[in-house]
């Protein structure tokens, strides 16, 4: 999959530039650059994983694997000013694999339990109360769009390209999700 990733605002641009610099260092075997990269993008990686899996323990597993894959494949990154697109592509593939494992384990073991139950927000061990509400209230698709826009600063058209969805779908799901969350906040207050 080839992703076209337009650079967003200044913050996103800075993050892309810094990430690209660190990837170059990592590809040269500079281990300390890995720590700096972790500090820079840890929330982006974790938030996206949590939005998809809905389960904190699994999100941590995905997060760890994403960083390992980044380290392992850093030599293969072609600098084009789009490192976050490359990283999210790695993460999306790992999450796809995560769901495949869930699905396969269920199929091969002939267990009746639906793998989706494992990702049920009710079963997560998320500490933050607002986050628990968010995970429970929004669909997986709404969560990933919210995270990519609000946490990672991607523009809607960038999200549309990344997720291979029409821009109109992304926009409507984003607005619907925000509306749901506003209702949650109002109710809480």
């Amino acid at each position, binding site marked *: 999959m080839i992703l076209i990733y337009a650079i967003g605002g200044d913050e996103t641009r800075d993050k892309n530039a810094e990430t690209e610099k660190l990837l170059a260092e990592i590809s040269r075997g500079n281990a300390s650059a890995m720590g700096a990269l*972790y500090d820079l993008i840890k929330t982006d990686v*974790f938030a996206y994983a949590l939005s998809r899996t809905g389960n904190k323990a699994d999100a941590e597993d995905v997060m760890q694997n994403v*960083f390992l894959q980044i380290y*392992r494949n850093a030599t293969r990154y072609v600098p084009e000013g789009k490192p976050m697109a490359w990283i999210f592509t790695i993460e999306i593939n790992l999450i796809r694999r995560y769901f495949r494992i869930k699905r396969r384990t269920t*199929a091969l073991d002939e267990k009746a339990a639906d793998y989706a139950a494992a990702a049920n927000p009710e079963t997560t061990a*998320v500490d*933050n109360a607002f986050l628990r509400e968010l995970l429970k209230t929004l669909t997986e698709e709404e969560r990933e769009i919210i995270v990519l826009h*609000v946490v990672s600063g991607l523009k809607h058209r960038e999200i549309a390209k990344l997720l291979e969805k029409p821009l109109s779908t992304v926009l409507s799901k984003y607005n619907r999700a*925000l509306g749901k969350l*506003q209702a949650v906040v109002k109710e809480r207050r």
Partner: protein
Amino acid sequence: MKTRLKNEIADAFREETPDLRDKIIKACENEPQLAAPAATPVRKAKTHGKAVIRRFIAVAACAVLFVAGLLTGKAIPEPVPTASADTFLYLDVNPSIELSLDGNRTVLSCEAENADAETVLVGLELEGVKLKTALSAIVGAMYVKGYLSENDNSMLISVDTSSPDGAAGFLQTVTEQVKEVFDNSSMECSIIAQSVRADESLIKRAADNGISVGKMYLLDKMVSAIDELSDADLPELSGMSIKDLNLLYTLKPEKGDSPDGEVISGKVNGYVTTEQAYAAVLEQLGKTENDVAYHSVYTIPYKQGEFKVMYSVTVKLKGDDKIYVFEVDCKTGRVTDDVSYERPPQNGGDGKHDIPPFPDGEMK
């Protein structure tokens, strides 16, 4: 209101993010980095005479398969996603591809397991097509995109099925279908075929090592069957091509630990043969076949920095009490070592069977 809400969302995720920094950095320390890929897959520079004709046939056949794959995929609508997969088929060359199939051997999904496989699958929409058609399209695409050549290929086929028909029969069928595709394209391929039973642990370990479930299963089998290999070698073994593993795999049958339904077919091309290795040793000794009382050739794994597959060539010359043991690099044919030693004490025999204790391996 919206800005406040967005800040609250971002803060919530930030607070929840666990601190895995040390754990990840430590894990990275043990993680090998992949080599930067070549810009384009390497093809042979020169072909002459019959080779040109042969190549033309292969190119033409594969181009047809590839285009047929594209057309077939587009002509058939998306499958109704109600069928459940009872079989998973893994194809490894270096591109690693996973197919899930229903009971009618129709492809339900086709997943790229690595970047090379993503390249192979660009433009192919195989969901809903019959397995045989899918195999043709995949082999065609692999050839067209430079991952297969006319005569120097190895493929690992792994089947994981809960089908009542059983794994062995299906494995045989798939292997024959793949061979047929290669034969029809005038291409040669050495095939390792195995049935696997993938549990969650195997799938996870495959993901951790960045390889397919089939390759992981094969490596596990090799590590358990070959004394010289251990779990510590898995990262390095993971990076080896199926072709190199195929040669290393020849060590395995002597250990008497064959997985269920295993089929090995075809010969491994692109390497020095045992006969050539023996000839190189004779040349090194300055002797001919007539001077030899006895010889043997074993395949051995050899680790010095990286894994190599070597031939250990043992020669006993007529009228000479010494036993000569050489090691020959399977890739280059270079004679790399010479350990000659005195013949051990005789047991009153005629000398023909008084050979030193050989390492376990396949006798040629």
